[in-house]
Protein backbone atom coordinates (compact mmCIF):
# COMPACT_ATOMS: atom_id res chain seq x y z
CA UNK A 1 0.00 0.00 0.00
CA UNK A 2 2.79 2.40 0.97
CA UNK A 3 4.43 1.60 -2.31
CA UNK A 4 1.30 2.66 -4.19
CA UNK A 5 1.09 5.92 -2.20
CA UNK A 6 4.76 6.63 -2.83
CA UNK A 7 4.32 5.89 -6.52
CA UNK A 8 1.28 8.13 -6.92
CA UNK A 9 3.07 10.95 -5.04
CA UNK A 10 6.10 10.54 -7.22
CA UNK A 11 3.98 10.59 -10.37
CA UNK A 12 2.13 13.74 -9.32
CA UNK A 13 5.47 15.45 -8.49
CA UNK A 14 6.82 14.53 -11.90
CA UNK A 15 3.65 15.84 -13.59
CA UNK A 16 3.85 19.19 -11.77
CA UNK A 17 7.57 19.59 -12.49
CA UNK A 18 6.93 18.70 -16.13
CA UNK A 19 4.17 21.25 -16.29
CA UNK A 20 6.46 23.93 -14.80
CA UNK A 21 9.23 22.93 -17.22
CA UNK A 22 6.79 23.32 -20.12
CA UNK A 23 5.56 26.73 -18.83
CA UNK A 24 9.01 28.12 -17.95
CA UNK A 25 10.11 29.06 -21.49
CA UNK A 26 6.74 30.76 -21.99
CA UNK A 27 7.09 32.78 -18.76
CA UNK A 28 10.65 33.70 -19.72
CA UNK A 29 9.47 34.76 -23.19
CA UNK A 30 6.73 36.85 -21.57
CA UNK A 31 9.22 38.64 -19.28
CA UNK A 32 11.73 39.24 -22.10
CA UNK A 33 9.01 40.64 -24.40
CA UNK A 34 7.77 42.90 -21.61
CA UNK A 35 11.29 44.16 -20.82
CA UNK A 36 12.03 44.89 -24.50
CA UNK A 37 8.80 46.86 -24.86
CA UNK A 38 9.48 48.65 -21.57
CA UNK A 39 12.77 49.94 -22.99
CA UNK A 40 11.12 50.87 -26.31
CA UNK A 41 8.27 52.64 -24.46
CA UNK A 42 10.67 54.60 -22.30
CA UNK A 43 12.84 55.62 -25.29
CA UNK A 44 9.87 56.68 -27.41
CA UNK A 45 8.25 58.59 -24.53
CA UNK A 46 11.52 60.49 -23.97
CA UNK A 47 11.82 61.24 -27.68
CA UNK A 48 8.21 62.45 -27.87
CA UNK A 49 8.73 64.60 -24.78
CA UNK A 50 11.81 66.28 -26.25
CA UNK A 51 10.08 66.92 -29.58
CA UNK A 52 6.96 68.36 -27.89
CA UNK A 53 9.04 70.63 -25.66
CA UNK A 54 11.06 71.78 -28.70
CA UNK A 55 7.89 72.74 -30.61
CA UNK A 56 6.42 74.42 -27.45
CA UNK A 57 3.40 72.14 -27.54
CA UNK A 58 2.12 73.12 -24.05
CA UNK A 59 2.10 76.82 -24.91
CA UNK A 60 0.22 76.16 -28.17
CA UNK A 61 -2.34 73.97 -26.39
CA UNK A 62 -2.67 76.43 -23.50
CA UNK A 63 -3.98 79.21 -25.72
CA UNK A 64 -7.45 77.72 -26.13
CA UNK A 65 -10.23 78.12 -23.57
CA UNK A 66 -11.41 74.50 -23.64
CA UNK A 67 -7.96 72.98 -23.46
CA UNK A 68 -6.84 69.66 -21.95
CA UNK A 69 -5.31 71.66 -19.12
CA UNK A 70 -8.79 72.91 -18.12
CA UNK A 71 -9.92 69.32 -17.51
CA UNK A 72 -6.75 67.82 -16.08
CA UNK A 73 -4.88 70.87 -14.88
CA UNK A 74 -2.22 68.97 -12.94
CA UNK A 75 -0.92 67.34 -16.11
CA UNK A 76 0.50 69.29 -19.00
CA UNK A 77 -0.51 68.17 -22.52
CA UNK A 78 3.10 67.03 -23.09
CA UNK A 79 3.04 64.85 -19.97
CA UNK A 80 -0.30 63.36 -20.97
CA UNK A 81 0.91 62.46 -24.47
CA UNK A 82 4.18 60.97 -23.27
CA UNK A 83 2.29 58.88 -20.71
CA UNK A 84 -0.15 57.66 -23.35
CA UNK A 85 2.79 56.62 -25.56
CA UNK A 86 4.55 54.89 -22.64
CA UNK A 87 1.54 52.93 -21.42
CA UNK A 88 0.45 52.18 -25.00
CA UNK A 89 3.74 50.39 -25.63
CA UNK A 90 3.57 48.62 -22.27
CA UNK A 91 0.15 47.24 -23.23
CA UNK A 92 1.50 46.15 -26.63
CA UNK A 93 4.40 44.51 -24.77
CA UNK A 94 1.92 42.65 -22.55
CA UNK A 95 0.04 41.36 -25.60
CA UNK A 96 3.24 40.28 -27.33
CA UNK A 97 4.31 38.64 -24.05
CA UNK A 98 1.05 36.69 -23.85
CA UNK A 99 1.51 35.50 -27.45
CA UNK A 100 5.09 34.51 -26.69
CA UNK A 101 3.91 32.68 -23.56
CA UNK A 102 1.38 30.77 -25.61
CA UNK A 103 3.95 29.86 -28.28
CA UNK A 104 6.59 28.93 -25.69
CA UNK A 105 4.36 26.82 -23.45
CA UNK A 106 2.19 25.15 -26.12
CA UNK A 107 -0.91 26.22 -24.12
CA UNK A 108 -3.44 26.93 -26.85
CA UNK A 109 -6.29 29.42 -26.65
CA UNK A 110 -4.95 31.82 -23.98
CA UNK A 111 -4.06 34.65 -26.33
CA UNK A 112 -7.20 34.20 -28.45
CA UNK A 113 -9.31 34.58 -25.30
CA UNK A 114 -7.37 37.62 -24.07
CA UNK A 115 -7.25 39.29 -27.50
CA UNK A 116 -10.99 38.98 -27.93
CA UNK A 117 -11.51 40.65 -24.52
CA UNK A 118 -9.03 43.49 -25.03
CA UNK A 119 -11.32 45.91 -26.92
CA UNK A 120 -13.79 45.66 -24.04
CA UNK A 121 -11.07 46.34 -21.46
CA UNK A 122 -9.80 49.36 -23.41
CA UNK A 123 -13.34 50.70 -23.83
CA UNK A 124 -14.06 50.19 -20.13
CA UNK A 125 -10.79 51.89 -19.12
CA UNK A 126 -11.63 54.91 -21.29
CA UNK A 127 -15.14 55.05 -19.81
CA UNK A 128 -13.75 54.84 -16.29
CA UNK A 129 -11.18 57.56 -16.93
CA UNK A 130 -13.69 59.87 -18.62
CA UNK A 131 -16.28 59.26 -15.88
CA UNK A 132 -13.81 59.95 -13.09
CA UNK A 133 -12.47 63.15 -14.69
CA UNK A 134 -15.98 64.36 -15.57
CA UNK A 135 -17.32 63.51 -12.13
CA UNK A 136 -14.59 65.43 -10.33
CA UNK A 137 -14.72 68.40 -12.70
CA UNK A 138 -18.50 68.76 -12.60
CA UNK A 139 -18.76 68.26 -8.84
CA UNK A 140 -16.18 71.01 -8.29
CA UNK A 141 -17.98 73.26 -10.79
CA UNK A 142 -21.28 72.70 -8.97
CA UNK A 143 -19.63 73.31 -5.58
CA UNK A 144 -18.07 76.63 -6.62
CA UNK A 145 -21.15 77.83 -8.50
CA UNK A 146 -23.43 76.92 -5.56
CA UNK A 147 -21.20 78.73 -3.06
CA UNK A 148 -21.17 81.80 -5.30
CA UNK A 149 -24.97 81.61 -5.42
CA UNK A 150 -24.99 81.48 -1.60
CA UNK A 151 -26.64 78.05 -1.45
CA UNK A 152 -26.06 76.59 2.00
CA UNK A 153 -26.40 73.00 0.69
CA UNK A 154 -23.57 73.47 -1.86
CA UNK A 155 -21.53 70.53 -0.64
CA UNK A 156 -24.47 68.09 -0.67
CA UNK A 157 -25.33 69.21 -4.21
CA UNK A 158 -21.73 68.74 -5.33
CA UNK A 159 -21.46 65.31 -3.71
CA UNK A 160 -24.75 64.30 -5.30
CA UNK A 161 -23.47 65.22 -8.76
CA UNK A 162 -20.17 63.42 -8.15
CA UNK A 163 -21.78 60.15 -6.99
CA UNK A 164 -24.43 60.28 -9.67
CA UNK A 165 -21.71 60.36 -12.33
CA UNK A 166 -19.58 57.75 -10.54
CA UNK A 167 -22.50 55.33 -10.21
CA UNK A 168 -23.48 55.90 -13.85
CA UNK A 169 -19.86 55.31 -14.89
CA UNK A 170 -19.56 52.14 -12.82
CA UNK A 171 -22.75 50.74 -14.35
CA UNK A 172 -21.52 51.59 -17.85
CA UNK A 173 -18.09 50.03 -17.20
CA UNK A 174 -19.58 46.78 -15.84
CA UNK A 175 -22.02 46.64 -18.74
CA UNK A 176 -19.17 47.20 -21.20
CA UNK A 177 -17.12 44.40 -19.61
CA UNK A 178 -20.16 42.13 -19.81
CA UNK A 179 -19.88 41.45 -16.09
CA UNK A 180 -22.92 40.90 -13.95
CA UNK A 181 -25.27 40.47 -16.88
CA UNK A 182 -28.73 41.90 -16.36
CA UNK A 183 -28.21 42.35 -12.64
CA UNK A 184 -26.23 45.57 -13.22
CA UNK A 185 -28.90 47.08 -15.47
CA UNK A 186 -31.63 46.06 -13.09
CA UNK A 187 -29.80 47.33 -10.01
CA UNK A 188 -28.95 50.60 -11.71
CA UNK A 189 -32.56 51.09 -12.87
CA UNK A 190 -33.88 50.39 -9.38
CA UNK A 191 -31.32 52.70 -7.77
CA UNK A 192 -31.97 55.61 -10.13
CA UNK A 193 -35.72 55.14 -10.14
CA UNK A 194 -35.64 54.90 -6.35
CA UNK A 195 -33.72 58.16 -5.99
CA UNK A 196 -36.10 60.04 -8.31
CA UNK A 197 -39.17 58.55 -6.58
CA UNK A 198 -37.79 59.38 -3.13
CA UNK A 199 -37.13 62.98 -4.18
CA UNK A 200 -40.57 63.29 -5.77
CA UNK A 201 -42.25 61.93 -2.64
CA UNK A 202 -40.15 64.13 -0.37
CA UNK A 203 -41.08 67.28 -2.27
CA UNK A 204 -44.65 66.23 -3.11
CA UNK A 205 -45.75 64.97 0.31
CA UNK A 206 -43.24 66.25 2.86
CA UNK A 207 -43.01 69.82 1.57
CA UNK A 208 -46.56 70.24 0.28
CA UNK A 209 -47.56 72.68 3.00
CA UNK A 210 -44.27 74.52 2.77
CA UNK A 211 -44.63 74.99 -1.00
CA UNK A 212 -48.26 76.15 -0.76
CA UNK A 213 -47.42 78.61 2.04
CA UNK A 214 -44.49 79.93 0.05
CA UNK A 215 -46.65 80.40 -3.06
CA UNK A 216 -49.36 82.15 -1.04
CA UNK A 217 -46.79 84.47 0.47
CA UNK A 218 -45.38 85.27 -2.98
CA UNK A 219 -48.86 86.04 -4.35
CA UNK A 220 -49.74 88.27 -1.39
CA UNK A 221 -46.44 90.16 -1.38
CA UNK A 222 -46.75 93.76 -2.69
CA UNK A 223 -44.56 94.74 -5.63
CA UNK A 224 -41.35 96.12 -4.16
CA UNK A 225 -39.26 98.72 -5.86
CA UNK A 226 -35.64 97.55 -5.44
CA UNK A 227 -33.54 99.93 -3.40
CA UNK A 228 -30.64 101.43 -5.32
CA UNK A 229 -27.41 99.57 -4.67
CA UNK A 230 -24.92 101.55 -2.65
CA UNK A 231 -21.98 99.20 -3.14
CA UNK A 232 -20.56 98.78 -6.62
CA UNK A 233 -17.96 96.19 -7.51
CA UNK A 234 -17.35 97.49 -11.05
Amino acid at each position, binding site marked *: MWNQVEQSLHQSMVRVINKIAILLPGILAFIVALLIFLVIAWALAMLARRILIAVKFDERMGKGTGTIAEWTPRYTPTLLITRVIFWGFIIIGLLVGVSAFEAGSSEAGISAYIFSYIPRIIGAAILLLAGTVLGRFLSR*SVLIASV*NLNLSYARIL*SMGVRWLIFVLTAAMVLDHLALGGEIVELAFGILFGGIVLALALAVGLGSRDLVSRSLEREAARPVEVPAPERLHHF
Partner: protein
Amino acid sequence: MARVELPEETKRRIEAIGSVDVLIGVWGTVGRDGFYERAAQVIAELGETAQKIVFAFPGDTPPEQPPSAPDSTVVCLQYPSPSSGPAGELWIEAASAQRSILEIAALLNAGSCLVLNADLVALHVQSIQMLLYASVEKQCDLVTPIYPVGKYDGLINSGILSPLTRALYGRRVRYPLPFEFGVSARLSTRLALSARSGNQADRSLLWPATVAAIDAAPIGQVYLDVHHHVPTEGLELSVVLAQLVGSAFLEMEQYAAQWQRVRASQQTPTWGTPTPPPVSEEPIDAKPMIDSFLLGSKNLDEVWRLVLPPVTLLELKHLARQSPEQFRMPDTLWVKIVYDFALAHRLRTISRTHLLGALTPLYLGWVASYVREVSNMTHAAAEQRLEQLARAYEDNKPYLVSRWRWPDRFNP
Protein backbone atom coordinates in the same frame (compact mmCIF):
# COMPACT_ATOMS: atom_id res chain seq x y z
CA MET B 1 0.61 89.74 -32.33
CA ALA B 2 -2.87 89.83 -33.83
CA ARG B 3 -4.29 92.93 -35.42
CA VAL B 4 -7.90 94.04 -35.65
CA GLU B 5 -9.28 93.52 -39.15
CA LEU B 6 -11.43 96.39 -40.41
CA PRO B 7 -13.79 95.93 -43.38
CA GLU B 8 -12.65 97.18 -46.79
CA GLU B 9 -15.39 99.84 -46.84
CA THR B 10 -14.12 101.37 -43.58
CA LYS B 11 -10.53 101.24 -44.85
CA ARG B 12 -11.52 103.04 -48.07
CA ARG B 13 -13.22 105.79 -46.06
CA ILE B 14 -10.14 106.12 -43.84
CA GLU B 15 -7.93 106.47 -46.92
CA ALA B 16 -10.23 109.16 -48.29
CA ILE B 17 -10.01 111.12 -45.02
CA GLY B 18 -6.20 111.06 -44.92
CA SER B 19 -4.20 111.93 -41.82
CA VAL B 20 -5.87 113.77 -38.93
CA ASP B 21 -4.88 115.57 -35.74
CA VAL B 22 -7.39 114.09 -33.31
CA LEU B 23 -9.57 111.00 -33.45
CA ILE B 24 -12.41 110.83 -30.93
CA GLY B 25 -13.77 107.29 -30.92
CA VAL B 26 -16.73 105.96 -29.00
CA TRP B 27 -16.98 102.27 -28.03
CA GLY B 28 -20.18 100.38 -27.29
CA THR B 29 -23.71 100.68 -28.61
CA VAL B 30 -24.67 104.25 -29.35
CA GLY B 31 -27.61 105.82 -31.21
CA ARG B 32 -26.56 107.82 -34.27
CA ASP B 33 -28.87 110.75 -33.56
CA GLY B 34 -27.80 111.01 -29.92
CA PHE B 35 -24.17 110.84 -30.94
CA TYR B 36 -24.56 113.54 -33.60
CA GLU B 37 -26.31 115.80 -31.14
CA ARG B 38 -23.49 115.49 -28.58
CA ALA B 39 -20.79 115.73 -31.26
CA ALA B 40 -22.40 118.88 -32.66
CA GLN B 41 -22.47 120.37 -29.16
CA VAL B 42 -18.77 119.61 -28.69
CA ILE B 43 -17.89 121.01 -32.14
CA ALA B 44 -19.79 124.20 -31.37
CA GLU B 45 -18.11 124.60 -27.97
CA LEU B 46 -14.64 123.89 -29.37
CA GLY B 47 -15.19 126.76 -31.83
CA GLU B 48 -13.04 127.31 -34.90
CA THR B 49 -10.08 124.99 -34.81
CA ALA B 50 -7.17 124.45 -37.15
CA GLN B 51 -6.99 120.82 -36.14
CA LYS B 52 -8.60 118.14 -38.25
CA ILE B 53 -10.88 116.09 -36.00
CA VAL B 54 -12.55 112.77 -36.79
CA PHE B 55 -15.40 111.36 -34.70
CA ALA B 56 -15.69 107.57 -34.94
CA PHE B 57 -18.60 105.60 -33.55
CA PRO B 58 -19.91 102.06 -34.02
CA GLY B 59 -22.80 101.37 -36.36
CA ASP B 60 -23.73 99.67 -39.58
CA THR B 61 -25.67 102.44 -41.29
CA PRO B 62 -23.90 104.54 -43.96
CA PRO B 63 -22.09 107.54 -42.48
CA GLU B 64 -23.19 111.06 -43.00
CA GLN B 65 -22.01 114.43 -41.82
CA PRO B 66 -23.50 115.75 -38.56
CA PRO B 67 -25.92 118.56 -39.43
CA SER B 68 -23.99 121.26 -37.62
CA ALA B 69 -20.45 120.33 -38.72
CA PRO B 70 -18.90 123.71 -39.53
CA ASP B 71 -16.46 122.73 -42.24
CA SER B 72 -14.30 119.95 -43.60
CA THR B 73 -12.07 119.95 -40.52
CA VAL B 74 -14.62 117.78 -38.69
CA VAL B 75 -15.52 114.37 -40.09
CA CYS B 76 -17.71 111.54 -38.79
CA LEU B 77 -16.81 107.94 -39.42
CA GLN B 78 -18.68 104.76 -38.56
CA TYR B 79 -16.92 101.51 -37.84
CA PRO B 80 -18.58 98.07 -37.62
CA SER B 81 -20.11 97.48 -34.21
CA PRO B 82 -18.72 94.46 -32.37
CA SER B 83 -21.19 91.60 -32.02
CA SER B 84 -22.93 91.81 -28.66
CA GLY B 85 -22.67 88.70 -26.51
CA PRO B 86 -24.04 87.84 -23.07
CA ALA B 87 -24.21 90.50 -20.38
CA GLY B 88 -21.02 89.27 -18.68
CA GLU B 89 -19.03 89.81 -21.88
CA LEU B 90 -19.31 93.60 -21.57
CA TRP B 91 -15.59 94.11 -21.04
CA ILE B 92 -14.57 91.80 -23.88
CA GLU B 93 -16.84 93.68 -26.27
CA ALA B 94 -15.43 96.95 -24.95
CA ALA B 95 -11.87 95.80 -25.59
CA SER B 96 -12.77 94.68 -29.10
CA ALA B 97 -14.37 98.05 -29.92
CA GLN B 98 -11.47 99.94 -28.30
CA ARG B 99 -9.01 98.03 -30.48
CA SER B 100 -11.03 98.93 -33.59
CA ILE B 101 -10.80 102.62 -32.65
CA LEU B 102 -7.06 102.33 -32.05
CA GLU B 103 -6.64 100.57 -35.38
CA ILE B 104 -8.53 103.41 -37.10
CA ALA B 105 -6.29 105.90 -35.26
CA ALA B 106 -3.20 104.06 -36.50
CA LEU B 107 -4.49 104.03 -40.09
CA LEU B 108 -5.46 107.71 -39.92
CA ASN B 109 -2.08 108.50 -38.40
CA ALA B 110 -3.94 110.49 -35.76
CA GLY B 111 -1.72 112.66 -33.57
CA SER B 112 -3.96 111.91 -30.56
CA CYS B 113 -6.76 109.43 -30.07
CA LEU B 114 -9.43 109.73 -27.40
CA VAL B 115 -11.40 106.58 -26.65
CA LEU B 116 -14.74 107.33 -24.95
CA ASN B 117 -17.52 105.24 -23.42
CA ALA B 118 -20.80 104.78 -25.33
CA ASP B 119 -22.87 106.41 -22.56
CA LEU B 120 -21.39 109.65 -23.99
CA VAL B 121 -21.11 111.29 -20.54
CA ALA B 122 -17.47 112.06 -21.32
CA LEU B 123 -18.32 113.50 -24.74
CA HIS B 124 -18.35 117.08 -23.58
CA VAL B 125 -15.86 119.81 -24.16
CA GLN B 126 -14.30 119.91 -20.65
CA SER B 127 -13.40 116.21 -20.65
CA ILE B 128 -12.06 116.33 -24.20
CA GLN B 129 -10.00 119.42 -23.48
CA MET B 130 -8.58 117.85 -20.32
CA LEU B 131 -7.61 114.63 -22.11
CA LEU B 132 -6.14 116.56 -25.05
CA TYR B 133 -4.28 118.90 -22.73
CA ALA B 134 -2.41 116.01 -21.09
CA SER B 135 -1.92 114.22 -24.39
CA VAL B 136 -0.85 117.13 -26.62
CA GLU B 137 0.45 119.88 -24.30
CA LYS B 138 2.05 117.59 -21.70
CA GLN B 139 3.05 115.00 -24.32
CA CYS B 140 1.79 112.00 -22.41
CA ASP B 141 1.59 108.81 -24.46
CA LEU B 142 -1.29 107.67 -22.30
CA VAL B 143 -3.84 109.75 -20.39
CA THR B 144 -6.16 107.94 -18.01
CA PRO B 145 -9.04 109.47 -16.06
CA ILE B 146 -9.68 109.74 -12.34
CA TYR B 147 -13.41 109.56 -11.74
CA PRO B 148 -15.19 111.13 -8.75
CA VAL B 149 -16.31 107.81 -7.28
CA GLY B 150 -17.45 107.11 -3.75
CA LYS B 151 -15.63 104.93 -1.27
CA TYR B 152 -17.96 102.00 -2.01
CA ASP B 153 -17.61 102.21 -5.82
CA GLY B 154 -15.40 100.25 -8.19
CA LEU B 155 -14.21 97.84 -5.52
CA ILE B 156 -12.71 95.26 -7.90
CA ASN B 157 -10.54 98.06 -9.23
CA SER B 158 -9.66 99.42 -5.77
CA GLY B 159 -9.05 96.04 -4.16
CA ILE B 160 -7.27 94.19 -6.94
CA LEU B 161 -6.73 95.76 -10.37
CA SER B 162 -5.30 99.17 -9.48
CA PRO B 163 -2.92 98.14 -6.63
CA LEU B 164 -1.85 94.99 -8.48
CA THR B 165 -0.98 96.96 -11.64
CA ARG B 166 0.86 99.52 -9.55
CA ALA B 167 2.92 96.92 -7.69
CA LEU B 168 3.72 94.93 -10.83
CA TYR B 169 4.52 97.61 -13.36
CA GLY B 170 5.60 100.43 -11.04
CA ARG B 171 3.16 103.14 -12.22
CA ARG B 172 0.48 104.56 -9.95
CA VAL B 173 -2.54 104.54 -12.24
CA ARG B 174 -5.92 104.78 -10.48
CA TYR B 175 -7.88 103.16 -13.33
CA PRO B 176 -5.78 100.67 -15.29
CA LEU B 177 -8.91 99.47 -17.10
CA PRO B 178 -10.58 102.82 -17.82
CA PHE B 179 -13.84 103.59 -19.56
CA GLU B 180 -12.07 106.31 -21.52
CA PHE B 181 -8.49 107.27 -22.19
CA GLY B 182 -6.30 109.25 -24.54
CA VAL B 183 -3.29 107.90 -26.42
CA SER B 184 -0.58 109.27 -28.66
CA ALA B 185 -0.02 108.08 -32.26
CA ARG B 186 2.82 105.82 -31.15
CA LEU B 187 0.90 104.13 -28.39
CA SER B 188 -2.29 103.71 -30.43
CA THR B 189 -0.35 101.60 -32.96
CA ARG B 190 1.25 99.63 -30.13
CA LEU B 191 -2.10 99.04 -28.38
CA ALA B 192 -3.86 98.03 -31.60
CA LEU B 193 -1.20 95.35 -31.90
CA SER B 194 -1.46 94.28 -28.27
CA ALA B 195 -4.23 91.71 -28.85
CA ARG B 196 -3.09 88.28 -27.92
CA SER B 197 -2.58 86.00 -30.90
CA GLY B 198 -4.30 82.64 -31.23
CA ASN B 199 -7.91 81.78 -30.53
CA GLN B 200 -8.10 84.03 -27.45
CA ALA B 201 -7.18 87.08 -29.54
CA ASP B 202 -10.65 88.60 -29.55
CA ARG B 203 -11.35 87.69 -25.91
CA SER B 204 -8.49 89.53 -24.22
CA LEU B 205 -9.08 92.86 -22.50
CA LEU B 206 -7.18 96.02 -23.31
CA TRP B 207 -4.81 97.21 -20.56
CA PRO B 208 -3.42 100.53 -21.85
CA ALA B 209 -1.61 101.38 -18.60
CA THR B 210 0.22 98.04 -18.59
CA VAL B 211 1.40 98.41 -22.18
CA ALA B 212 2.48 102.02 -21.55
CA ALA B 213 4.34 101.02 -18.37
CA ILE B 214 6.13 98.15 -20.13
CA ASP B 215 7.18 100.57 -22.91
CA ALA B 216 8.27 103.14 -20.28
CA ALA B 217 5.95 105.62 -22.03
CA PRO B 218 4.93 108.84 -20.23
CA ILE B 219 1.56 108.38 -18.48
CA GLY B 220 -0.65 111.16 -17.15
CA GLN B 221 -3.94 111.27 -15.28
CA VAL B 222 -6.69 113.85 -15.42
CA TYR B 223 -9.62 114.40 -13.10
CA LEU B 224 -12.84 114.02 -15.08
CA ASP B 225 -16.20 115.09 -13.69
CA VAL B 226 -17.87 112.07 -15.22
CA HIS B 227 -20.13 109.49 -13.58
CA HIS B 228 -20.54 106.18 -15.36
CA HIS B 229 -23.33 103.85 -14.48
CA VAL B 230 -22.46 100.22 -15.25
CA PRO B 231 -25.71 98.28 -15.78
CA THR B 232 -25.43 95.44 -13.26
CA GLU B 233 -28.62 93.70 -14.38
CA GLY B 234 -27.78 90.19 -15.54
CA LEU B 235 -24.17 90.55 -14.42
CA GLU B 236 -22.92 87.98 -11.93
CA LEU B 237 -20.14 89.09 -9.63
CA SER B 238 -18.22 85.81 -9.94
CA VAL B 239 -18.33 85.96 -13.76
CA VAL B 240 -17.18 89.57 -13.95
CA LEU B 241 -14.52 89.03 -11.29
CA ALA B 242 -13.21 86.00 -13.18
CA GLN B 243 -13.15 87.95 -16.43
CA LEU B 244 -11.35 91.02 -15.08
CA VAL B 245 -8.95 89.31 -12.68
CA GLY B 246 -8.34 86.44 -15.11
CA SER B 247 -7.33 88.95 -17.76
CA ALA B 248 -5.01 90.75 -15.30
CA PHE B 249 -3.39 87.38 -14.47
CA LEU B 250 -2.91 86.64 -18.18
CA GLU B 251 -1.17 90.01 -18.57
CA MET B 252 1.05 89.08 -15.61
CA GLU B 253 2.05 85.90 -17.38
CA GLN B 254 2.73 87.72 -20.64
CA TYR B 255 4.93 90.40 -19.07
CA ALA B 256 6.53 88.27 -16.30
CA ALA B 257 10.06 88.99 -17.47
CA GLN B 258 9.45 92.75 -17.28
CA TRP B 259 7.55 93.15 -14.00
CA GLN B 260 9.98 91.00 -12.03
CA ARG B 261 12.63 93.67 -12.62
CA VAL B 262 10.43 96.55 -11.39
CA ARG B 263 11.02 97.83 -7.87
CA ALA B 264 8.64 100.24 -6.03
CA SER B 265 6.36 102.60 -8.01
CA GLN B 266 6.42 106.06 -9.54
CA GLN B 267 3.90 108.81 -9.00
CA THR B 268 1.87 109.60 -12.14
CA PRO B 269 1.48 113.31 -12.95
CA THR B 270 -2.12 114.38 -12.51
CA TRP B 271 -3.94 117.46 -13.82
CA GLY B 272 -7.33 119.00 -13.15
CA THR B 273 -9.40 119.53 -10.05
CA PRO B 274 -10.85 116.59 -8.16
CA THR B 275 -14.63 116.60 -7.92
CA PRO B 276 -16.23 115.46 -4.65
CA PRO B 277 -18.08 112.12 -4.78
CA PRO B 278 -21.76 112.48 -5.77
CA VAL B 279 -23.79 110.75 -3.06
CA SER B 280 -23.83 110.75 0.71
CA GLU B 281 -22.07 107.61 1.84
CA GLU B 282 -23.91 106.03 4.73
CA PRO B 283 -22.48 102.85 6.28
CA ILE B 284 -23.25 99.61 4.47
CA ASP B 285 -24.23 96.34 6.15
CA ALA B 286 -21.32 93.94 5.65
CA LYS B 287 -23.19 90.91 7.08
CA PRO B 288 -24.28 89.40 3.72
CA MET B 289 -20.70 89.56 2.45
CA ILE B 290 -19.33 88.01 5.64
CA ASP B 291 -21.93 85.23 5.25
CA SER B 292 -20.73 84.60 1.68
CA PHE B 293 -17.16 84.41 2.93
CA LEU B 294 -18.13 81.99 5.71
CA LEU B 295 -20.04 79.80 3.28
CA GLY B 296 -16.96 79.69 1.05
CA SER B 297 -14.74 78.97 4.04
CA LYS B 298 -16.98 76.04 5.02
CA ASN B 299 -17.28 74.52 1.55
CA LEU B 300 -14.33 75.57 -0.59
CA ASP B 301 -11.60 74.46 1.77
CA GLU B 302 -10.64 71.58 -0.56
CA VAL B 303 -10.14 74.03 -3.45
CA TRP B 304 -8.34 76.72 -1.45
CA ARG B 305 -5.99 74.08 -0.06
CA LEU B 306 -4.68 73.44 -3.58
CA VAL B 307 -3.92 77.13 -4.11
CA LEU B 308 -3.02 78.70 -0.78
CA PRO B 309 -0.14 77.84 1.58
CA PRO B 310 -0.95 76.41 5.05
CA VAL B 311 -0.25 79.66 6.91
CA THR B 312 -2.79 81.54 4.76
CA LEU B 313 -5.36 78.80 5.30
CA LEU B 314 -4.78 79.04 9.03
CA GLU B 315 -5.32 82.80 8.96
CA LEU B 316 -8.51 82.31 6.95
CA LYS B 317 -9.73 79.83 9.58
CA HIS B 318 -9.07 82.41 12.31
CA LEU B 319 -10.90 85.01 10.25
CA ALA B 320 -13.91 82.71 9.85
CA ARG B 321 -14.13 82.37 13.64
CA GLN B 322 -14.25 86.14 14.23
CA SER B 323 -17.56 87.77 15.09
CA PRO B 324 -19.06 90.08 12.42
CA GLU B 325 -18.20 93.09 14.61
CA GLN B 326 -14.53 92.13 14.73
CA PHE B 327 -14.26 90.86 11.18
CA ARG B 328 -11.14 92.32 9.58
CA MET B 329 -8.97 90.83 6.85
CA PRO B 330 -5.36 92.09 7.16
CA ASP B 331 -3.92 93.69 4.00
CA THR B 332 -1.00 91.25 3.91
CA LEU B 333 -3.36 88.28 3.98
CA TRP B 334 -5.48 89.66 1.13
CA VAL B 335 -2.44 90.58 -0.96
CA LYS B 336 -0.88 87.14 -0.51
CA ILE B 337 -4.18 85.51 -1.49
CA VAL B 338 -4.22 87.52 -4.74
CA TYR B 339 -0.57 86.67 -5.42
CA ASP B 340 -1.12 82.96 -4.70
CA PHE B 341 -4.12 82.89 -7.00
CA ALA B 342 -2.05 84.58 -9.72
CA LEU B 343 0.60 81.91 -9.33
CA ALA B 344 -1.96 79.08 -9.37
CA HIS B 345 -3.44 80.64 -12.53
CA ARG B 346 -0.04 80.53 -14.16
CA LEU B 347 0.74 76.98 -12.99
CA ARG B 348 -2.80 75.76 -13.76
CA THR B 349 -2.85 74.13 -10.33
CA ILE B 350 -6.59 73.65 -10.87
CA SER B 351 -8.84 74.54 -13.79
CA ARG B 352 -8.72 78.31 -14.33
CA THR B 353 -12.52 78.53 -14.33
CA HIS B 354 -12.61 76.86 -10.91
CA LEU B 355 -9.72 78.92 -9.60
CA LEU B 356 -11.28 82.27 -10.44
CA GLY B 357 -14.68 81.08 -9.21
CA ALA B 358 -13.12 80.15 -5.87
CA LEU B 359 -11.76 83.70 -5.50
CA THR B 360 -15.23 85.28 -5.19
CA PRO B 361 -15.92 84.40 -1.50
CA LEU B 362 -12.43 85.60 -0.56
CA TYR B 363 -12.98 88.84 -2.44
CA LEU B 364 -16.29 89.31 -0.63
CA GLY B 365 -14.43 88.73 2.62
CA TRP B 366 -12.06 91.54 1.73
CA VAL B 367 -14.98 93.79 0.69
CA ALA B 368 -16.73 93.11 4.01
CA SER B 369 -13.58 93.97 5.92
CA TYR B 370 -13.00 97.14 3.88
CA VAL B 371 -16.63 98.26 4.13
CA ARG B 372 -16.59 97.84 7.91
CA GLU B 373 -13.31 99.67 8.22
CA VAL B 374 -14.18 102.72 6.10
CA SER B 375 -17.81 103.03 7.19
CA ASN B 376 -17.02 105.90 9.56
CA MET B 377 -14.22 107.40 7.48
CA THR B 378 -14.37 110.44 5.25
CA HIS B 379 -13.79 110.04 1.53
CA ALA B 380 -10.20 111.28 1.89
CA ALA B 381 -9.50 108.86 4.74
CA ALA B 382 -10.91 105.99 2.68
CA GLU B 383 -8.56 107.00 -0.16
CA GLN B 384 -5.70 106.89 2.33
CA ARG B 385 -6.82 103.41 3.35
CA LEU B 386 -6.65 102.28 -0.28
CA GLU B 387 -3.21 103.83 -0.55
CA GLN B 388 -2.17 101.72 2.45
CA LEU B 389 -3.48 98.61 0.65
CA ALA B 390 -1.55 99.55 -2.50
CA ARG B 391 1.62 99.84 -0.40
CA ALA B 392 0.95 96.36 1.02
CA TYR B 393 0.85 95.05 -2.55
CA GLU B 394 4.24 96.68 -3.20
CA ASP B 395 5.74 95.50 0.10
CA ASN B 396 4.72 91.89 -0.58
CA LYS B 397 5.95 91.85 -4.16
CA PRO B 398 9.16 89.98 -3.19
CA TYR B 399 6.87 87.15 -1.98
CA LEU B 400 5.24 87.01 -5.42
CA VAL B 401 8.56 87.17 -7.27
CA SER B 402 10.00 84.41 -5.11
CA ARG B 403 6.98 82.15 -5.54
CA TRP B 404 6.80 82.92 -9.27
CA ARG B 405 10.44 81.98 -9.79
CA TRP B 406 10.56 78.96 -7.49
CA PRO B 407 6.99 77.68 -7.18
CA ASP B 408 8.12 74.26 -5.91
CA ARG B 409 10.12 75.68 -3.02
CA PHE B 410 8.69 74.91 0.44
CA ASN B 411 6.22 77.58 1.43
CA PRO B 412 4.78 77.13 4.94
